[in-house]
């Protein structure tokens, strides 16, 4: 019995050694795979997987459960031009970069602002859009506030989306204010509407939309945006071919005027609202 036990344990030990070295070997192989570009893999697969999050009107769900929006149009056209199908992976915005880095999808096309801190982890294409952070405030709680500094007090609460450029802007521009970050836009809007926060920082045109929708409770303390940031595709590092492909594609559709036309449709008209409800 003792000898059997020893043989068994030896077998287990050898299995573990092979297992660990197998992982090491496949890790080498994996490095090679990572070196191979994303567009090659997409072309082989015949499918482009795009990570995004719900941001009205960049990406939203319509009545039939399909995704519509500016980013959806961009991604669909991109996949079309690559000759592949497109698939969207709705992800919580705060976790979208870790999800990209762990291979849950190929690219983030979701209105992601180019920030140096993000750039340390992911690569960005050239900008295909520009956005800015705007602010909408509660009429009673923040009545009379007309400058950013008015909000920079410790008794003021502002809300923004976790992991967004608006959150970064809030941290930077309003260091003294209480900041609360939520995952979803609807939660942020409810916070201000319910009088639990003084103001909401978000990418334009959301604040303006909300001020129009609830004129009795919300107002715009500052007109327009107080930051300006470029929006680009985010992709994994070390992938020159894919980066070049996206950059060139953006230049092409920009020269066509297609980007401007789509931007006008989604951001400056209301034609798509009936699709939602």
């Amino acid at each position, binding site marked *: 019995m003792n000898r059997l036990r020893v043989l068994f344990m030896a077998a287990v030990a050898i299995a573990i050694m092979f297992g660990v070295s197998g992982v090491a070997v496949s890790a080498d192989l994996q490095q090679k795979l990572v070196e191979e570009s994303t567009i090659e893999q997409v072309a082989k697969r015949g499918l482009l997987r795009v990570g995004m999050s719900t941001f009205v009107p960049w990406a939203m769900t*319509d*009545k039939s459960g399909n995704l519509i929006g500016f980013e959806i149009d961009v991604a669909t056209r991109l996949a079309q031009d690559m000759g592949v199908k497109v698939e969207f*992976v709705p992800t*919580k915005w705060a976790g979208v970069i870790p999800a990209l880095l*762990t*291979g849950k999808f190929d690219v983030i096309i979701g209105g992601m602002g180019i920030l140096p801190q993000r750039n340390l982890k992911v690569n960005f294409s050239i900008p295909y859009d520009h956005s800015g952070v705007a602010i909408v405030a509660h009429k009673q709680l923040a009545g009379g506030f007309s400058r950013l500094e008015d909000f920079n007090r410790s008794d003021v609460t502002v809300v923004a989306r976790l992991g967004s450029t608006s959150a970064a802007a809030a941290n930077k521009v309003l260091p003294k204010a209480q900041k609360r970050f939520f995952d979803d*836009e*609807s939660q942020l809007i*409810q916070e201000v509407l319910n009088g639990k926060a003084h103001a909401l920082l978000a990418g334009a045109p959301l604040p303006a939309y909300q001020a129009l929708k609830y004129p009795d409770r919300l107002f715009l303390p500052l007109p327009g945006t107080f930051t300006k940031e470029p929006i680009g595709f985010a992709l994994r590092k070390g992938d020159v071919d894919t980066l070049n492909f996206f950059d060139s594609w953006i230049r092409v559709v920009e020269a066509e005027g297609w980007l401007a036309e789509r931007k006008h449709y989604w951001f400056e008209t209301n034609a798509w609202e009936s699709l939602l409800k």
Partner: protein
Amino acid sequence: MIHRKPTITLIDVWVLLALLAAAAFVAYRVRVGLNYHWNWGALPQYLLRYDPQERLWVPNVLLQGFFMTIRLSIWATACATLIGVAMGLLRVSRSRFKRMAAAGYVELTRNTPPLVLVFIFYFFIGDQLLSTVNLEAYLRGQSPAVQALLATLLAPPGRLTAFLSAVLTLSIFEGAYITEIVRAGIQSIEKGQREAAAALGFTRWQRLWHVILPQAVPRILPPLAGQFISTIKDSAIVSAISIQELTFRGMELMSSTYLTFETWITITGLYFVLTFGCALTVERLELRWRRQRA
């Protein structure tokens, strides 16, 4: 404990007064304080919608999320049972090392918040499942019929990796509880059984297979069913890693349509129906089974 027949007592009066006061307060506040435009009419279309192409009523986002929750719970409980049984047997083994290993797993898993575990495991496991990307490619090449079957049983090929990650994460979490259930079940078999079997010349494995387990399994099944119901509730946590189950779908819906109140009430109702329904079914089955054995 003296059991008494339910009658009208002073407590009834107090409870009734308290409930009426609470209801009045809520009604008052809803009328005065709430500035919400209710729009219940817009909600049913997100449960079921009429597809003009297929001429059928198909489930829309909320029901799709509901079915995903059911699938997640069933698969997670199945895998968790496998893990739990294996670990449970380790927990009662004679080797101290095996007992320590299993105990380490159980203590670590049961003492960490599920939300934190989910975040950690999802990003770790995700990469290990990179190999299933090839599985994905293979599955996408299959006929639509096979893909439809897969979508009903598990998830559509695109979501398969995420689904499997979520199932594995939930199984590891629930497995720790099932380990304890299995351990308690095995240890509840009285020592006399083990000694008698040993006296009859059964080896350890034979003892386990022929004597202990057949008696332990009926004691394990009721708490196991309770664990399935717990899994249904815990599945809501994987919405934090963007798995498209009911809670996540509901939150996405609210972001697009701002139907906050209606959606939350519907989601709560759906979970209640599912869990309460399962709990009642389990109770009925247990009663019937006990009558059969008695």
